[in-house]
């Protein structure tokens, strides 16, 4: 139960003279759900991109299930069984919902199993009605859900989500919460998020980023009531 599936040590990312991520040490256990929060520019998105291979960290290391993945390419990291959703919905516009999800499943399973997986995922995410539609024609919330389906289709053991609730209706958010909860039965999940309401509804533990480093980690209520956090995060926001 207490096995660590993701770990970073001294993860640092500098752009020119600016240090966006400053020697971050971070650990995540199997089937844990963790939210990364913090004001804009706190470094949480940079940290996220370093985990997913979209950015190559300046120094430090990333370990996934004990294996060092520091300078790996994105596709190599996701091939380990990591599901990733980026900030802006990244889906395949010109093809159908089913094709999107099938392709994601096909990376890990044979064609016929992928077909079953895709069907299951489509059921699970309530995408049945639009399974044959081209993703390009869908509404924002639906696209976000399709991307979640892509993430889920490969049966990942680690899921990384960047702002999954952004721009969604409350109904969509509820559905999303339910889906993510279900994911945690098999996978560890990291969510980068602004929406405090969503975070409260879903998370137990949060990590607060500030000025490129980790300010505080702990239970969501406890963190929210912390004076320092209120100052740097909520204070600034107001």
């Amino acid at each position, binding site marked *: 139960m207490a096995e660590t599936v993701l770990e970073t040590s001294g993860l640092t990312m500098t752009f020119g003279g600016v240090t966006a991520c400053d020697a971050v040490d971070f650990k995540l256990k199997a089937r844990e759900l963790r939210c990364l929060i913090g004001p804009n520019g706190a470094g949480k998105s940079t940290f996220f991109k370093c985990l*997913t291979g*979209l950015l190559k960290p300046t120094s430090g290391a990333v370990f996934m299930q004990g294996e060092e993945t520091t300078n790996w*390419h*994105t*596709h*190599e990291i*996701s*091939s380990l069984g990591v599901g*990733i959703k*980026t900030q802006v919905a*990244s*889906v*395949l*516009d*010109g*093809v*159908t919902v089913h*094709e*999107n999800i*099938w*392709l*994601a499943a*096909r*990376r*890990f399973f044979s*064609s016929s199993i992928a077909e079953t997986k895709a069907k299951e995922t489509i059921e699970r995410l309530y995408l049945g009605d639009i399974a*044959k539609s*081209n993703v390009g024609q869908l509404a924002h919330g639906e696209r976000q859900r399709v991307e979640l389906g*892509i993430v889920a289709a*490969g049966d990942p053991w680690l899921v990384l989500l960047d702002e999954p609730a952004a721009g969604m209706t409350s109904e969509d958010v509820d559905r999303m919460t339910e889906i993510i909860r279900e994911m945690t039965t098999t996978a560890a999940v990291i969510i980068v998020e602004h929406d405090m309401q969503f975070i409260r509804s879903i998370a137990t533990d949060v990590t607060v980023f500030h000025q490129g480093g980790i300010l505080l980690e702990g239970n969501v209520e406890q963190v929210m009531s912390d004076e320092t956090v209120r100052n740097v995060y909520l204070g600034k926001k107001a």
Partner: protein
Amino acid sequence: MREITLQRFTLSIIIAAALMLFLPVIMNTFVLTPLLIYGMLGMSLGLIWGFGGILCFGQAAFFGLGAYAYAISAINIGESTIPMLIAVMVPAIFAAVLGAMMFYGRLGDVYLGVITLVVTLIFFKFMNSTAGPDYVIGTARLGGFNGIPGFQTLNIPGLPDDYIYGDSLYYVTFVLLVVAYWLVNWLLQSPFGRVAVAIRENEQRVSLMGYDIRARKTILFAIGGAIAGLAGALFANWAEIVTPGLFSLSQTAEIIIWCIVGGLGTRLGPILGAAGLAYLKFLLGQQAFIDNTIIMGLILVLFVLFLPKGLIPAIESVWKLSVGKRRRCHPSRRRKGRAITNG
């Protein structure tokens, strides 16, 4: 699902066979053969550009390379079977190397265009400067601007004196085009092809799914190179001479125009675009009233402006519209039409 594919396969074979026998009735085979060859060449770019999203300004390089590889090996070997294989392999390997260099270097669209264009120019300039007697591969003189004439042309495998030319070259070309078409079709329906289309749609997403897009693009590029190479070899056999003009900018431009006019992202579009425009060029050559380049230029500009998707999708949608009207009373059947959109 499988039954439908089989049915469609049989049906298309029958259509192809009927076309193959019918076309020579209305047109001479020596006019038809190059149209088929250009169709194959158009298809090769249609595959990597229309389905793989790789805009290659250098498809002429693979075409020329195939033709030259055939001519040079045919002079050295004599019998045509192995040279045909070489003519497919050489451009494929070259495309793989070039593709690996570009895709592993993560070059963007425009830069890809520049590099492929530059590579074509290098071939053009190099081949043009090989007139001297020092440029020899085996017993074949490269010949510079004048090119290489007088090589062994296609023969029945194993019988170097039984040439396949004229009408029989037409039939062989037709069969090869149909085979290549079906291979491309099969490829596009396979997981590899579906991933390729996905890469065209959104590289980052596919990479996030865990697919190595660099390797896949490289392989697709090599397949496109191989088909262009085959077209080049057939062209060499038909023209019985290869010249550096095969590598020229205008040749490259024409291939791109074929694809745009026919319709990118369709399987038949580039083939029909190529054959149609090549025939138009052939007809224009028999008059002296208007310069051919004006027409080609206008066609390209007008298509980009008004029909950027090309003829085939336009015809398809018009047809669907009219069929849709007729079928309005059976709303249950309307869904069917769109399943093709991604193919």
